[in-house]
Structures are given as C-alpha cells and as structure tokens.
C-alpha cells in the first residue's frame, strides 16, 4: 500500500474541504474537552476549597447555615450572616482547651472584604508582611497581595470603607484607613482581603467613634451643660480618619465583650481538647461549632452528584455528536462513491480506498484529541487563577 500517497490524497481532501473538516474537528474537540474540563475545574475548586477548609480545625459562629459560616469565616463571602458576641469566643479561649481567633468579616472597601481579626490570625495562616509593617494601632490596615496589585496600594496609601447605608444620614460614615503593610501572596482568599484590627471594624460599624472633645466645643455646639455632663448638637465634628492627632478621641461605649464578630477559628490543643470543645457546644443553641472540612465534604457531595449528572448529559451529547460525525463520514463516503470507483479503475485496490477514508477519519479524531489536550492544558493553567478570583 502506498501510504505516502494515501496521506497525500487524504490531506489534500481535508484541506480542500477545510470548512467541513474544521467543523468536525471542533465538534469532536468539544466532545472530549467538555467532560474533562468540567471534571478538572471541579477537582481544582474542590482542591482549593478543601485545602483551606481542612486546614481549619473548627469554626464557631451564630447558629444558622454551616455553609454560610464557612464561607464567611474562611472565604470572607456571605457578609450578612448573623453575629455572636466576642465574649463567646473569649470564653472558649479562656477554657485553655483551644486557641480562638475572632473574625469580623462584614464590611468592604473598593470591592474587597475588610476582615477584622487579631494578630494571631496572621501567625496561624503563616502570613508574612513583605512591604511595610503589621498592624499596630486603630485605623491601620494591611492588604492582601491581590488587593495591593489590583489597586496599586503601597504602605503610606489609604483605603476608604464603603458606605453601608447610602441614604442613612445618621448611619455609619466611611472610615479612611492607612495602609501600613502588604502581605505576601498565599494563593488563598487572604490575598483579596484587607486586614484590620477587630476594633477598627467596630469603628466602621459605628460602635466606636472619635469626635471633638466636648469640653472644647463652642457654646453654639452644646445643647446643655450640666454638672459633669455636656450634651452636644449635630454640628460637632466626627472624625472619619484615625490619625495621631485624633486617635485619643476614639472610644467605645459599653462592654467590648458584647461587640459582634461573625466567626471564630477554633484550634484545639489536641484531640482530647477537640472532643471536649465539640461536646461543650453540641447542645448549645446560641452558637454552632462546625468542622469546615466536613461541611465542605457535604457541599462537594452535592456538587459531585450534579457533576455526574452533567457529565452523563455531556456523554449523551458526545455520543450523539460522534454518531453524527460517523454519519457525515458515511454520507461523504457515499457522495464520493464515483471518485472511489474511478480510483479503483485507475488501479487502486480496495485496501487503498479504505485506508484513505480511515486516514481522513483518524486525522479528524487525532486532531480533535490533540486540540482538546491543549485546551485542557490551558484550562489547567488558568483554572487556579480563575478559581481563586471566583472564591475571593
């Protein structure tokens, strides 16, 4: 058999009918690519979500959806979840069974979540400040690598928290925060967050504030002055930035232990402590204590069942596409019957004709396989970035 001749004739047929060839290649490429890409992306999503969830032993929060708690406490989404008082976290920390790191993830600035926490969080997540320094005082923030990159932030710059209620004139004013540090990239939602001290988030919420010293106000700013008490009217200046000059005027009313947090990462000292902590909260209706890894397992059980269904559907579509492809080749074979008959008259044997058709089919299949492998490689390359941006 003249294989060079067969390859030549087959190639010429395919290139001369390149529109039909391209359509077949694209259709077959999608048949191979779609199920593989879905499986790959779901696998990557699972890997990304699970690694953070599994790396967090326990999560404490207000009773409600465990999944929303995980998303708030680990991925800083779902800001609207119910809060619990800080005292709940501190009580657990005081038990000496576990370390407890409170998180208040409710506000945002320029589309990035503001995460109020304590210094322990950075140690626990092995986060390093690569530019500037870490938090020292109120009104300061350190920004994740992606926030710094996207907004071009450097130490010395500032970010302003987004207004919570646009039309509420008596509501919370945006707080101008000073960027004092940029964190090293971690490939996690931390890269897209702005970290502040817990108290700073409470100031954003309006639970703490700073204003002119009452005793230094003009008479026309006072409503009344009684012994030891000065009542001021609305003209008193409230600060929306914490500076060295205004820092001393910021204060909180009431007991800080009653102030809200959305979640707390609980790190038991050992397996026994873990069991004790879990046992302590198993019948407590005021909070929920969950294992993020187990919660994500439940989520992925649902995701995988949907994925299986989608892949079955794609398999059915793929089978239909392959059948149509086979039909195209069959019809093409019939349309070319005269051509093949004449090639036989000229001296081509039946094997040559069959090899010619087989080469054309094999070319389409092989090209689609190569293209789908390349596309899958591309998906694999960009998937982590896309998934991180989606999760963040």
């Amino acid at each position, binding site marked *: *058999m*003249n294989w060079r*001749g*067969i390859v*030549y*004739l087959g190639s*010429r*047929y395919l290139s*001369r*009918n390149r529109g039909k060839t391209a359509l077949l290649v694209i259709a077959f490429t999608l048949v191979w690519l779609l199920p593989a890409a879905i499986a790959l992306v779901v696998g990557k999503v699972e890997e990304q979500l699970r690694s953070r969830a599994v790396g967090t032993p326990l999560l404490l929060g207000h009773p409600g959806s465990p999944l929303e708690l995980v998303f708030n406490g680990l991925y800083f989404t779902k800001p609207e979840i119910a809060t619990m008082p800080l005292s709940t976290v501190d009580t657990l920390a005081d038990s000496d069974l576990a370390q407890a790191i409170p998180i208040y993830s409710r506000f945002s600035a320029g589309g990035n979540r503001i995460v109020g926490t304590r210094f322990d969080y950075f140690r626990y997540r092995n986060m390093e400040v690569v530019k500037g320094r870490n938090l020292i005082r109120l009104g300061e923030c350190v920004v994740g690598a992606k926030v710094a990159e996207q907004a071009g932030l450097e130490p010395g710059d500032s970010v302003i928290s987004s207004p919570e209620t646009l039309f509420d004139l008596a509501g919370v004013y945006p707080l101008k925060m000073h960027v004092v540090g940029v964190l090293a990239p971690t490939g996690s939602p931390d890269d897209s967050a702005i970290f502040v001290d817990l108290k700073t988030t409470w100031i954003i919420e309006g639970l703490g504030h700073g204003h002119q010293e009452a005793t230094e106000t003009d008479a026309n700013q006072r409503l009344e002055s009684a012994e030891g008490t000065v009542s001021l009217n609305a003209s008193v200046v409230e600060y929306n930035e914490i500076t060295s000059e205004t820092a001393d005027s910021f204060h909180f009313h009431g007991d800080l232990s009653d102030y809200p947090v959305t979640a707390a990462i609980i790190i038991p000292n050992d397996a026994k402590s873990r069991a004790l902590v879990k046992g302590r909260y198993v019948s407590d209706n005021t909070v929920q204590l969950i294992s993020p890894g187990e919660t994500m397992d439940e989520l992925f059980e649902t995701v995988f069942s949907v994925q299986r269904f989608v892949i079955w559907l794609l398999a059915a579509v793929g089978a239909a596409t392959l059948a149509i492809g086979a039909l195209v080749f069959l019809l093409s074979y019939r349309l070319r019957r*005269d*051509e093949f008959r*004449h*090639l*036989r*008259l*000229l*001296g*081509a*044997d039946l094997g*040559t004709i069959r090899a010619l058709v087989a080469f054309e089919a094999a070319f389409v299949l092989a090209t689609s396989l190569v293209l789908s492998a390349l596309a899958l490689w591309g998906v694999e390359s960009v998937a982590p970035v896309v998934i991180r941006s989606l999760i963040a």
Partner: protein
Amino acid sequence: MITLENVRFSYPGDSFELRIDQLDIESVETVAFVGPSGCGKTTLLNLISGVFLPDAGMITVAGTRVSDLRPQERQTFRIENIGLVPQNFELLDYLTVRENILVPFRISSAKSLPDDILARCEELAESAGIVSHLGKYPSQLSQGERQRSALCRGLITSPKLILADEPTGNLDPENQEKIVDLLLEEASRIGSTVVMITHEPELLPRFSRTVNVLELREGGAR
C-alpha cells in the same frame, strides 16, 4: 498485444450476453470500437482492462492472461500497463490539474514518483495546451480542458495500452479533434497501443483499424 478467445460475459440477472470468439489487436495498433449504444463496447473495454472477469474464455494483454490474475494482481497489472481515459473525465475536484495527472503514482504501491515526473507532467500538459492550468482545480476548467487533463493522466505512466471510453463524447468537434490528435501523437511517441470507443464517424480514419463490436459479437470483424 490483446487477444480474446471464446470470451463469454453476462451481467447477473440480465439477458445481455457478450460472446466474442476471437479478437486480436497488435502492438502499437490504434483501434476504434464502434457500435450502437448497449452493444457492449464499454463492457469489452472493462474485460480487457481486467475490471470485469469473463464467465468463460481467455483474455491476454501484453502477454499476461488477465483473466487468470488474482484481484490484487489485476489492480497492479492495470496500473503498470494500462492508461484509462474515461468519458466523464473523473478528475478529483480537491486536486489541482497537476495533482490529478499524478494520481496514478499516488494510489499505487507499484509505482513511485520518478524524479523527472514533474518535467514529464509539464511536457504532457504543454502538448495538451493546458500547461497554464496545472495549478487550477477542475471546476475552473472548460469541458475540453478537463478532458485533456484526464487524457494526460492516462498517459503519464507511459502505459503499454491506452483504453479510452468515448473521451470525445462531451466535446465540440474542434475539441474532439484536439483530443484525438493528442492521444494518437502521444501514443505513437511512447509506443502505446490505443483502443478507443467513439460514436464520431469523422474520427475513424485517424485510427489504423475500426472494430464494430456488434458485428464482433455476431462473429464478424476480428
């Protein structure tokens, strides 16, 4: 060159039967097959080329008993010894004229592309007046140009025998003349035997012999 003895052929389920007791065609002879439609001219051509096998009798071409060859051997024999020129050109629409002319070398394991084949192709196309069309596709050619391309393809292997099945049937008189001129001149140059089916009486004097297939079946002209 060609000998048929006591050949019998019929199509399954058809009353048509071709009976030829004896036919001899010498080397370098140019023979025109004539006869009314349906008398068996094309069938006879297919028997000579080995496309059909006789039910009985013996067919010898260039010293080889074609009727005794196995299918694969017949294919090889055909491509090595016979140049076919069909009535409907049968050019492959996805190949250029040059590529069509070279097709016999692409489909046969018995023939590899000789080094000088492109020069031979140009030379043939020059003789046929289609050298400027070598890079074109069949759809870009006129009927006459297509037939000349098909003729060049039949001649490219310098076959010992050229079988032409009414190659002038779709052409105007001027093009008929050109095709026959080209066929006979090239055949003479390479020393080929020519058997051509035709319905054009004015072309017959150009051939060394005319065989009426209807008479041949009835035991006439040999």
